[in-house]
């Protein structure tokens, strides 16, 4: 048992480290280090533009989309090499935010179901950051129940006509391409009538509107489709097989979102170490210590759980199911930690202005944003179902809508 690289891994790490040292945009290092949660904005420079420049530089040197095949803009690297790269890329990895959905979800789906021509035309540009992709799955009527989606695609000669609405689309406002799942047949049960496409986000009839979130920020969009035309050549997989296609995408989503998880623990530990209360330093209080210890072991547990998965990758094996706990643990932790930090601030905990708030208002911001962490990319409840069903082997829920034609499923609770 050890934490050491194999000789091959060490050599790869050295190469990656050297390249990052020589090429990273160091002027953003401090700012990126401090950003721990949510979408990042840079003081000097537009996040997307800076990200694109970094991605292009990486791509030119063969450090983009590492696990993809070389002919599509990747490096053909092993999973453990990809992880080593992420460790060495460090804080600059945060610059790749606009490309993560493309790399982790859309790209692999196009790779699995697209024509050779599409793969060669689209994927290298995704890898080099020239084109950004978004994923158009969630709908107002289909969140956790993705297969309940209602956006229609109707055949018209060699084209399909799209009408409907998507929601919670990250990056739709700057994306060039979108991966879109639609309903092509409402007369069959819900999982059977779906079809996947990709489309040019500049197509006529596509309208993107930002969503103002509960925390006041705007990180996601609604996307409306009004008579949007997509050529049949941009269909991914067979008509009616969209659900199976989407499983490829979603499987990658949970993996990629879980890879860089913030828990808030380093922040709360530092805060309690310095906070002077009437009874002395907060960290000397037994009740504070008990809470810190609880979060410390969760945070450490997540770290070493990831190490166990990495060890499996290092041996060339698939990581075990232990991976699936990350977001479930981290989401609640962030929320609890933020609430506790504000409690320690007493009445002043209500202040959010970074200029006057304790700890520059970071816990208030964390708290306001944390409900989203417990929902995005699979709610806590969906994640528990996944653990229960796929890891522990418990039976699936009894589904009342499974064999019912989609257009016969009730749409209102009362």
């Amino acid at each position: 048992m050890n934490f050491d690289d194999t000789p091959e891994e060490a050599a790869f790490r050295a190469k990656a480290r050297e390249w990052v040292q020589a090429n990273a945009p160091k002027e953003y290092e401090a700012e990126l280090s401090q950003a721990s949660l949510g979408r990042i904005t840079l003081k000097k420079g537009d996040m997307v533009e800076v990200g694109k420049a970094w991605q292009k530089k990486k791509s030119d040197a063969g450090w983009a989309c590492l696990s993809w095949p070389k002919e599509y803009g990747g490096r053909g690297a092993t999973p453990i090499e990809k992880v080593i790269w992420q460790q060495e890329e460090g804080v600059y990895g945060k610059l790749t935010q606009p490309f993560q959905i493309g790399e982790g979800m859309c790209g692999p789906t196009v790779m699995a179901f697209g024509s050779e021509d599409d793969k060669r035309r689209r994927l290298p540009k995704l890898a080099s950051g020239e084109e950004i992709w978004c994923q158009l799955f969630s709908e107002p009527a289909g969140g956790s129940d993705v297969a309940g989606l209602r956006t229609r695609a109707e055949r018209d000669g060699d084209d399909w006509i799209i009408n409907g609405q998507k929601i919670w689309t990250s990056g739709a406002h700057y994306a060039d391409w979108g991966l879109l799942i639609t309903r092509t047949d409402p007369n069959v049960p819900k999982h059977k009538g779906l079809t996947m496409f990709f489309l040019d986000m500049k197509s006529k009839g596509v309208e993107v509107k930002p969503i103002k979130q509960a925390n006041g920020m705007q990180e996601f969009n609604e996307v409306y489709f009004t008579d949007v035309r997509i050529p049949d050549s941009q269909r991914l997989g067979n008509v009616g097989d969209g659900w199976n296609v989407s499983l490829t995408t979603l499987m990658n989503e949970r993996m990629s979102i879980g890879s860089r998880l913030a828990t808030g623990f380093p922040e709360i530990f530092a805060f309690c170490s310095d906070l002077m209360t009437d009874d002395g330093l907060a960290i000397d209080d037994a009740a504070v210590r008990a809470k810190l210890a609880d979060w410390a072991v969760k945070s450490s547990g997540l770290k070493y759980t990831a190490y166990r998965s990495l060890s499996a990758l290092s041996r060339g094996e698939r990581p075990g199911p232990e991976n699936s706990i990350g977001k479930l643990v981290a989401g609640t932790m962030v929320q609890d930690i933020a609430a506790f930090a504000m409690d320690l601030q007493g009445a002043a905990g209500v202040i959010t202005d970074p200029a006057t708030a304790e700890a520059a208002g970071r816990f208030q911001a964390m708290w306001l944003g944390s409900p989203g962490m417990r929902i995005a990319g699979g709610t806590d409840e969906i994640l528990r179902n996944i653990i229960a069903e796929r890891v522990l082997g418990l039976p699936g829920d009894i589904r009342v809508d499974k064999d019912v034609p989609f257009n016969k499923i009730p749409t209102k609770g009362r």
Partner: protein
Amino acid sequence: MNFEFSDDQKQLRDQARRFLAEKCPPKAVRAVLEGSAGYDKALWSGLAEMGFLGVAIPEEFGGTGAGHLELCVIAEEMGRALAPVPFSSTVYLAAEALMLAGSDAQKQKWLPKIASGEAIGTLALFEGPGNPSPQAIKVAAANGVLNGVKKPVADGAIADFAIIAARVGAGGRETDIALYLVDLKAGGIEAKTLTNLDPSRNQAELTFKDCKAELLGAANEGWSILSRVLDRAGVLMAFEQVGGADRALEMGRDYALDRIAFGRQIGSFQAIKHILADMYVAATLARSNCYYGAWALSTNAGELPEAAATARISATQAFQHCSKQNIQVHGGMGFTWEFDCHLYYRRSNALALSLGSLSYWEDQLIERMRKKNAA
């Protein structure tokens, strides 16, 4: 990165699991729980024959000399099977203390007997309510004799020898504490079994009256030795707890698959699934933290104090959570004497309270992290 047990260590785990499945079914645990023997003598001999008692004891002292990673995998299996034997007292505490601080003669005398199953050892630290602290130790040592009362002492009424934390100075400082080795069969000691939460394990009160004792380690280093012993035992106990947590999770899962209510497997209800998913989360976090502890223990890493506290807290939480929720998944049947759920529930708390309770280790962890950050 190779943060995993080796194939040989996994084989040893399988071997221990098979052995315990055969020799230590729940029936054997119940026999001790409901009887008066204090431990399962046949199982204890069997463990010695398998070489499991001396797995971390060097060959020159009668062990197999395999190492602490090997001991970790065996500890996990002992916890999973709820083995009703003085394994933790003898192997994690007494043997570790001897190996850390014993003279050659002391090691020669006791370690081979531990490995062969001839001697049961324990550590007598606590004196009533409270957690490990030099101030709490009142048993006094003077002129090579001990006087005072220790309770509870795990496996105290069945042990052949004990290591006793005693006060040699008056100030209650760490340097006022020394460790003593006492042959419990030699006289001057009264051992009384205490009724306790988990009667599948013995708990006792030991009264020392002018009891002859020999120093273990230097007289002013007792507390520092003890701290190191507790850290090492903390990791090993954490493995035992993770084994118990995993088994409680399996029991709950199996019952949720077998039991039908409202015309369906109860495991198809999200209310039950989510309980079991949370048990899995707790057990997984604890296992990963235990691996960290195992690494630190086996390499004598500087991180051991922090890693031990981390593993111990996480595993205590996991075993308590899983054993408690296992009863909940079982519903009414889980609260019967007949079902095995309460055996795990009892053991989870008995282990949680040994070696210092959860709040003690939480305090220790934060203190240790703070020192590290300050350094």
